[in-house]
């Protein structure tokens, strides 16, 4: 075995040459916009795939109208896996590797909480689509915007509906122990007790499959109304197992999580899920504007689904609002985009999107909490109910509030 000769200088030079010769590509077109979505477990994949589809449709529609600043846009979808630490890393990747100028999307609250700091410290504007936790805007960060409803506000609709239902005296809240579920459960409990209604909260781990023990405990509480704050398959599992044990949606009044709006998955996983109530973001399909109708038609054609989910609408608009802001800013500079966003009036599929509070006007001037910072104040939240077995979600009856009502709620007793 002979000696191996190694020419150290040559190796070093080679290494140097490799790195120096790689040039940063300086192309300005297409303009890249990031999109966050959970595309693998433990994230909520159903939601993530819907959002990806919507964001890609947004990309297509914007490019069809001539793009932004004379360039096409390229929406770079990134998988957050629903994990905060992954989300922070992915936000970093979007900004430094892909070179995005702004970011849209976002499903899990924890993802929003963890990734917003990364974007904010690098001066990249983010418009969150579906992250409800109040603190995301509550930290009043310069580059962070949101078009999803606030958690406290969405919970308000849920508990107010429960409180006005006939004969409700005791409520059971089943929640996942995450930063979406826990604050929402606490807000519901607080609101209900202000109306003199007692409530018990059951917390579960997100991976839970077998709810038999919990269902028995819930049963022993003899609730008139159940509020389920479980995302994804946990919500399906709980609802069906509760139905098997005789406290499902057809036995007592039952609020299921909005994962139930995915009607194909809902009926497959929860065959006894008729009469469940759900909160839905956005106006009913009958009140859709033209762009929403067109989007819904394209979305249905692409996915084979019965309707378009609210988080898909939000994801679509988060990209749309960013594109318009870049156009109005006339550049891809973060600060310019923020200024444009603070002044924006975007006609999106959800309605007219604008951000009344920000650096020009602090929410406290109107006596509002800091969570209204860079927050779109108008997302409509309605309570809907499946009233026919196997019904698609777009024909669900809207039962609350009065303005949007399409039918009376069916209360079981």
């Amino acid at each position, binding site marked *: 075995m002979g000696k191996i000769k190694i020419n150290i200088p040559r190796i070093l030079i080679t290494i140097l040459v490799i790195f120096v010769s790689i040039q940063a590509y300086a192309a300005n077109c297409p303009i890249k916009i990031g999109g966050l979505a959970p595309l693998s477990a433990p994230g909520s994949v159903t939601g993530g795939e819907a959002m990806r589809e919507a964001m890609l449709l947004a990309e297509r529609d914007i490019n069809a109208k001539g793009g932004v600043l004379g360039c096409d846009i390229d929406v770079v979808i990134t998988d957050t896996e629903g994990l905060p630490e992954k989300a922070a890393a992915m936000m970093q990747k979007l900004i430094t590797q892909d070179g995005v100028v702004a970011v849209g999307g976002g499903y899990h609250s924890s993802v929003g909480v963890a990734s917003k700091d990364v974007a904010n410290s690098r001066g990249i504007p983010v418009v969150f689509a579906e992250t409800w936790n109040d603190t995301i805007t509550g930290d009043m960060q310069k580059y962070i915007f949101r078009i999803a409803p606030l958690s406290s506000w969405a919970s308000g609709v849920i508990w107010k509906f429960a409180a006005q239902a006939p004969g409700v005296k005791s409520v059971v809240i089943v929640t996942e*122990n995450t930063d979406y579920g826990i604050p929402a459960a606490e807000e519901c409990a607080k609101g209900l007790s202000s109306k003199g209604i007692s409530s018990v909260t059951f917390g579960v781990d997100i991976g839970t499959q077998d709810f*038999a023990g919990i269902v028995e405990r819930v049963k022993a509480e003899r609730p008139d109304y159940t509020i389920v704050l479980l995302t994804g398959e946990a919500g399906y599992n709980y609802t069906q197992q509760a139905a098997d044990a005789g406290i499902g949606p057809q036995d007592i009044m039952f609020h299921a999580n909005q994962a139930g709006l995915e009607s194909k998955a809902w009926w*497959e996983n929860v065959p006894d899920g008729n009469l469940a109530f759900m909160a839905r973001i956005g106006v009913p399909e009958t009140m859709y504007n033209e762009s929403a109708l067109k989007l819904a038609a394209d979305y249905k054609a692409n996915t084979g689904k019965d309707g378009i989910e609210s988080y898909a609408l939000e994801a679509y608009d988060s990209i749309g609002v960013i594109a318009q802001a870049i156009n109005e800013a006339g550049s891809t500079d973060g600060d310019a985009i923020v200024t444009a966003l603070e002044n924006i009036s975007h006609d999106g599929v959800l309605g007219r999107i604008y951000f009344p509070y920000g650096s020009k006007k602090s929410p406290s001037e109107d006596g509002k909490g800091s969570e209204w910072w860079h927050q779109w104040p108008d997302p409509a939240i309605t309570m809907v109910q499946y009233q026919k077995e196997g019904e698609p979600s777009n024909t669900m009856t809207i039962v609350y509030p009065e303005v949007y009502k399409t039918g009376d709620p069916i209360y079981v007793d």
Partner: protein
Amino acid sequence: MEYSAIFWWTALWLIFWGVVGSIFTRRVYLRKDLDTSNSILVGAMVGAAFGPIGLVPMWIKTPEISRKLILIPGFVALGIIMLAFALADPENNCVSNGSFVASQITNGLIIGIIYGLMALGLTLIFSILGIVSFSHGEFYMIGGMIVYYSTVVWFPGLHPVIGVLIACLLTFLLGAIFERLFLTPLYDGRIDRPVEYGILITFGLAFTLQYFVQAIGGSNPVKAKRFFDFPRIRLPDKEDPWLIKTSRGNMELFDTVSISNPRFVASVISILVLLGLLYFLYRTWTGKALRAVSQDRDAATIAGINPHHMNMLAFALGGMIAALSGATLVQAFSWLPQVGMIPAMRSFVIVVLGGLGSLPGAFIGGIIIGLVEAAGTGCVPDPQKASSYIPAYGMIVLTLMLLLRPTGLLGRRFASGTHGKL
């Protein structure tokens, strides 16, 4: 808890004397030159149950350790803990609500039978090949997936029972092929550390299978239709069906205990499979050969049994049993590529509890774990946390078992498998 001090002080008292008993009893027996094999367990049990009043006489008399000496103090200690709990929290459903307790116990038993079956597969593999299969959870997951795909996607309308059979067949083949490809080096001494190799290679299989299914089928939750609907029964009479009342998805016994249809069907299938398995193991030549290999490999070889065939059969059969539990539960739970993880962990707990390599032990262990989990979720007072700790309840039992009697409830002193000493 209203008077939580009562409970915690009692628990502390039990633990203290249990530790004292386990440490000193062994020393006493050792000094007197007696068999110390179960002295730790006996010491802990007697100490926990009777404290110094029980320990001192035992140390003086040093009776021969019998099953009675373990079981009686064991139940006494359990009784004391339960009494302390009842006194500490008299309002708890577990104390005051009889029908709640009955429902929880029924649920625990039913799900315990299914767990037991799954663990049986694991212990079967261990007793023949001497390895712990870390891919057990993925076989479970695949079993469910095959039933879903065959009855809903590929051949809509196919009867689920046929789907279950397809799942059994496919997973049996998968197990056999994997064993032929990856486990054969275990048998001819080419590997210095077979146990570790077994763990790692099955771990790799688990990883690959889980992501493979996810890449192929996506990770949307799916679920098969109910296998059977209950017939409508009202007994003893239509107006007042206190004995038994059924709807399509539910059965109510004595007006108190309700059993959901999918679980009931799954546990019935589990029992049938168990009976079939027992028949196979004890009444057929192949089954007897399988057991012979697990008891004494060399002797079995001399008797004309090809141990290599038995290895393949055992691994395939073990995986198939796990798949079968999954196949019967896919009608009860929503199914994802990740669902195997929790049942796999539970199977590990069960087989160690029952004794690695012991078939009846796995079944008893399954029922115990089913009951412990039911008690845990049912009785822990804080509703916010009770179910978050589900995986921990079994682990506490496991830790106790490993400390007091590492061979498990019914474990053989030296579980053998392929490699003699483990």
